[in-house]
């Protein structure tokens, strides 16, 4: 019996050694002084424990499945000389690094962390500052980008990069990141089945979140504030957008959300507050808008044309300067059971639904589309009279564009 146990222990010991990954400590006063050295020494599935300190390194190539853990946020300073970490192996984890000074280039997209053709990666608790591109995923699937903080200082669009960029990467989770001061907070190109949750994307030059040719993605509970435009969704299909907050995107070309060539999307339970344009829609079909709150926007929804079979059901339109703006006389979209704070009708049968249909498009919005300076006449009595006469007998606005069942009380 005793002998057997010993045999077992010896067996486990010998078999176990290669399985039990070793931990290599990296610190300025250790044997291993740089991350590059550490990576070179390590074998597959080892852990590199990087102690607090400053490591002036760039072009660190992680070519085996390693776990890089930073203790107390060690600083990796790229000294503006190029890319900092490139991952070319599956199963790599990067945790708790503070990466600064990524090189800026007009020919190469230098990134703080670039993942190339590698699966099952995890990048978490990383802080990036003074960057060009932040986290760049290239043909890499099934990974997770979690709880990172990306703080850029971008001033111009042409020489700045994106916070988190996904290119031909599928099934990636982007959760709880904070991105600010870059060109696009999160950028997706040709990336399908991505889920983006609980991120905060603020003060970016262009878009808080940007989709290009990416299908079947979901983004929920994110906050987009004070970006050039909150979210741009372009040329993508079947995107689900739920519970996001779009706030204070002010300016001449600023939108809470920009939809361009989007089909079959679901937009549910979002809040659009104080944007110049809440949602700008162009060439988008079969989209379902439900339970959204549009509060104090300049234009809650601006429809630019070629938008068919969209449905707006159970939304709250509160104190917007214009609820809906159209530039054509055709309408194929459905508005039903929304609450409009500008509704002036009555409810005699007390079923909670107004007895008179509501026309959300004002004549004035046409006038403003034609001559933008007339915006200064907003809320003037003359405009109210004109709007009223248009309401009574529509000439310029699509006469079938109305909410037949406007709600009397705001939806909770």
């Amino acid at each position, binding site marked *: 019996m005793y002998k057997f146990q010993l045999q077992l222990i010896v067996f486990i010991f010998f078999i176990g050694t290669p399985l039990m990954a070793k931990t290599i400590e990296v610190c300025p006063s250790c044997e291993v002084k740089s991350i590059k050295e550490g990576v070179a020494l390590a074998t597959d599935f080892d852990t590199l424990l990087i102690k607090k300190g400053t490591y002036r390194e760039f072009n660190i190539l992680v070519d085996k499945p390693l776990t890089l853990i930073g203790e107390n946020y060690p600083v990796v300073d790229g000294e503006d000389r190029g890319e900092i970490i490139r991952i070319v192996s599956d199963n790599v984890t990067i945790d708790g690094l503070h990466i600064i000074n990524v090189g800026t280039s007009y020919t190469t997209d230098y990134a703080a962390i670039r993942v190339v053709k590698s699966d099952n990666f995890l990048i978490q608790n990383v802080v990036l500052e003074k960057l060009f591109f932040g986290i760049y995923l290239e043909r890499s699937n099934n990974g997770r980008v979690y709880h990172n903080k990306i703080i850029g200082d971008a001033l111009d669009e042409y020489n700045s990069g994106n916070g988190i960029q996904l290119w031909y990467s599928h099934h990636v989770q982007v959760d709880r990141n904070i991105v600010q001061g870059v060109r696009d907070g999160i950028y997706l190109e040709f990336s399908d089945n991505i889920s983006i949750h609980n991120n905060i994307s603020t003060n970016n030059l262009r878009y808080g979140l940007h989709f290009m040719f990416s299908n079947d993605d979901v983004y929920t509970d994110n906050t987009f504030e004070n970006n050039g435009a909150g979210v741009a969704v372009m040329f993508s299909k079947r995107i689900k957008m739920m519970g996001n907050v779009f706030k204070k995107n*002010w*300016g*001449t070309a*600023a939108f809470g959300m920009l939809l361009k060539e989007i089909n079959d999307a679901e937009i549910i339970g979002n809040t659009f507050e*104080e*944007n*110049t*344009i809440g949602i700008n829609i162009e060439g988008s079909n079969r989209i379902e808008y439900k339970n959204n709150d549009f509060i*104090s*926007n*300049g*234009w809650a929804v601006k429809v630019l044309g070629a938008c068919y079979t969209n449905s707006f059901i159970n939304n709250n339109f*509160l*104190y917007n*300067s*214009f609820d809906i703006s159209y530039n054509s006389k055709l309408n194929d979209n459905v508005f039903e059971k929304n609450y409009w*704070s500008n509704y002036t009708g009555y409810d005699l049968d007390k079923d909670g639904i107004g007895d008179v249909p509501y026309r959300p498009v004002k004549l004035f919005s046409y*006038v403003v589309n*034609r*001559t*933008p*300076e*007339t*915006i*200064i*006449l*907003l*809320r*003037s*009595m*003359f*405009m*109210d*009279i004109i709007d009223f006469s248009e309401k009574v007998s529509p000439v310029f606005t699509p006469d079938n564009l109305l909410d037949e069942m406007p709600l009397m009380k705001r939806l909770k």
Partner: protein
Amino acid sequence: MLKILKYSFYDLMRSRWSYVYFLFYLALGFVLLFLNNDLSKAVITLMNVIIILVPLISTIFGVMYFYNSKEFTELLLAQPLKRSSIFLGQYLGVAGSLMLSLVLGLGIPFVLYGLFKSDTIWDFSLLLITGAFLTLIFAALAFNIALSNENKIKGFGYAVLLWLFLAVIYDGLFLMSLILFEEYPLDSFSLAATMFNPIDLSRTLILLKLDISALLGYTGAIFKQFFGTYTGLIVSITMLILWTVLPIWRLAYKAKRKDF
């Protein structure tokens, strides 16, 4: 002057019309809040009311008071009093009582509905300030009209016409000129045109608070400068003060020279 102001003020305070005016605003405030139960929506509705009704009532009231108290004015003129103080005293009495009715009439319901606890307090105070300015301006304009016209009917006619012009027709002409000249850069023109109409001016002032997000949608450097910074607020208020001072000055000037 103060004595005459006080007399006019108390005279008006005792008169039925002040109460009617006060009760009207009180009822309006309560009804609005009762129907909406929402302060920010009520503020928007109120804005329309203030911009249209306050000038109308101030104009009519000003003209009416001037003609009604004509005999008393002539009596005062026989006394060793400065002419400017007689007329300014009367004017300030009227404008003061109107402003008081407005502020109290609207203030009471809103305060009772929890204005101090809500974040619309700034919108609301801006509303009251513009209302006060409009009262001052239109009462002064009304006094000017009444002073220049002996004929009551004519005076009333001009006063109503003035209101109609500034409240509705001006904007119509403004809109037409904007559409007519749409090929030209119009942003400085449109801002300037607003300055020449106190109603538009106060409307802009309120828009700055309520619809700033829509106003910033227009591409124009001057617009952006005006609405995006404090410039708009400062310029609008300065212009409103100017609009108040000029008619009052003309009133004093005319009153000195008029032959009664």
